[in-house]
């Protein structure tokens, strides 16, 4: 147990030592690479006295709203596409086409449609995350064990009951795999939208602002914060997944 924990922190410690060495001996200009403790001090000060907590809050809020819209639309639509070959045939080309377009390429379009407020950020995040959720939900139905559906059919289960009691739970493990990819993707998209679509607060804005005025310590601190919430969001998702889809891999 002890050695497992040791392995867990080994690489981070090496990375920090590496960073410390570079900045201490000024192998790279301190303007670009401040010392680790400066970043930590900045992180602490911005969190306690500054506006980083607010920025983090805004970013999280956008991630969660965007992700939720994506899930509410993506799961039912994906399940329907997996279930009905008619709906699949009707939507397959469109979905595959839009899936090929990087979400970032659609920023200008979303700006035109939704303006520069939070709506555009929600929409673009929901778009990117929604496609991932939709496709995973669809595969969830396709990859589900056919035998369970047959079992249910021998018991004369049909229609919505077959869908809700067998096909949906059967697809859940794959739906959650989609959720985990989508939550990370949502954070990426929100950060990028905050950088390039104007906003008053948010970690993305904070990173780009700090970079523009060479406050590199604050830039690193904001990146660190972004990484931390990404890590935590993924852990929370994994926790929920293990609770809900307790049978996965068994």
């Amino acid at each position, binding site marked *: 147990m002890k050695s497992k924990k040791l392995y867990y922190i080994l690489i981070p410690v090496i990375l920090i030592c590496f960073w410390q060495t570079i900045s201490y001996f000024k192998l790279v200009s301190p303007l670009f690479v401040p010392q680790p403790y400066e970043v930590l001090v900045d992180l602490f000060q911005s969190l306690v006295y500054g506006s980083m907590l607010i920025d983090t809050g805004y970013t999280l809020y956008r991630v969660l709203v965007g992700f939720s819209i994506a899930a509410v639309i993506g799961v039912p639509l994906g399940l329907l596409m997996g279930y009905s070959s008619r709906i699949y045939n009707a939507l397959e080309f469109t979905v595959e086409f839009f899936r090929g377009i990087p979400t970032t390429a659609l920023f200008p379009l979303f700006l035109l449609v939704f303006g520069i407020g939070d709506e555009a950020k929600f929409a673009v995040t929901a778009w990117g995350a929604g496609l991932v959720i939709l496709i995973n939900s669809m595969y969830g139905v396709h990859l589900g*064990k056919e035998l*369970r559906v*047959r*079992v249910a059919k021998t*018991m004369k289960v049909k229609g919505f009951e077959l869908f809700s009691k067998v096909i949906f739970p059967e697809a*859940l493990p794959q739906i959650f795999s989609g959720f985990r990819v989508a939550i990370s993707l949502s954070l990426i998209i929100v950060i990028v939208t905050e950088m390039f679509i104007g906003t008053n607060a948010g970690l993305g804005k904070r990173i780009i602002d700090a970079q523009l005025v060479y406050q590199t310590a604050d830039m690193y601190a904001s990146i660190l914060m972004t990484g931390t919430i990404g890590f935590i969001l993924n852990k929370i998702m994994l926790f929920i997944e293990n609770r809900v889809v307790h049978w996965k891999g068994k």
Partner: protein
Amino acid sequence: MISVRSISKEFKKSSGTTRVIDGIDLEINNGEFVTVFGPNGSGKTTLLNLISGIDEPTFGAVLIDNKNPKDAKVGFVFQNYNESLFPWRTVIENIIFPLEVAKMDEEKRVKIAEHLLNGVGLLHSKDKHVYDLSGGQRQLISICRAIAYNPDILIMDEPFSALDYSTTRKMELELLDIWQEKKITTLFVSHDIDEAIFLADRVVVLSPRPATIKKIFEVKLSRPRTLDMLSSPEFTELRNAILNTFEYEK
């Protein structure tokens, strides 16, 4: 009573039609235990699909208590218990499933499920997840689920072939206990000749594809069956007689 009236099944392929079942006639009395023994790939599973109403014969008809199999209550136990049980449901919830679908009230269905679980000695495991049970126990749960809603016929497709020798023998005894209590009409497919004889009132021997009935053997061993019968002279004699039907094909 199950009447199988000269059924044949053909599958259309690009290379032409393949006949899998060729004119099978069979009557199974109420409460009778019939086993079907035949070489692998002889169309046993297709035959079960036709009798259970999952698939329709090309020629001929199947009647279960004078009803179309699609309208009859069929309990089906598949070989692959891992892919036929619902892992998102607990043990008792799995057994309740067909009763829930039949809209039976909750108190009654719990009572039926608990009675069945008690019968196979698994009442203490009722709230466990199915993946926490052993293979043999899981298949017992499948059997309980299949008979929970008092089916007109219980159909079993090589249910024990994934289990080890001693578990298989134990399961056979459990199955006979349940059958004796419920007097449920049972059609059991096996590729294990000892199993086919040990369980049955009659053994139906199929020919290789396209399947026809080669011969039907009556098993005159007394009931309840005990494991020492496996080495009795009557048993050995019948076993030889059945194996002899395959002899002259070489």
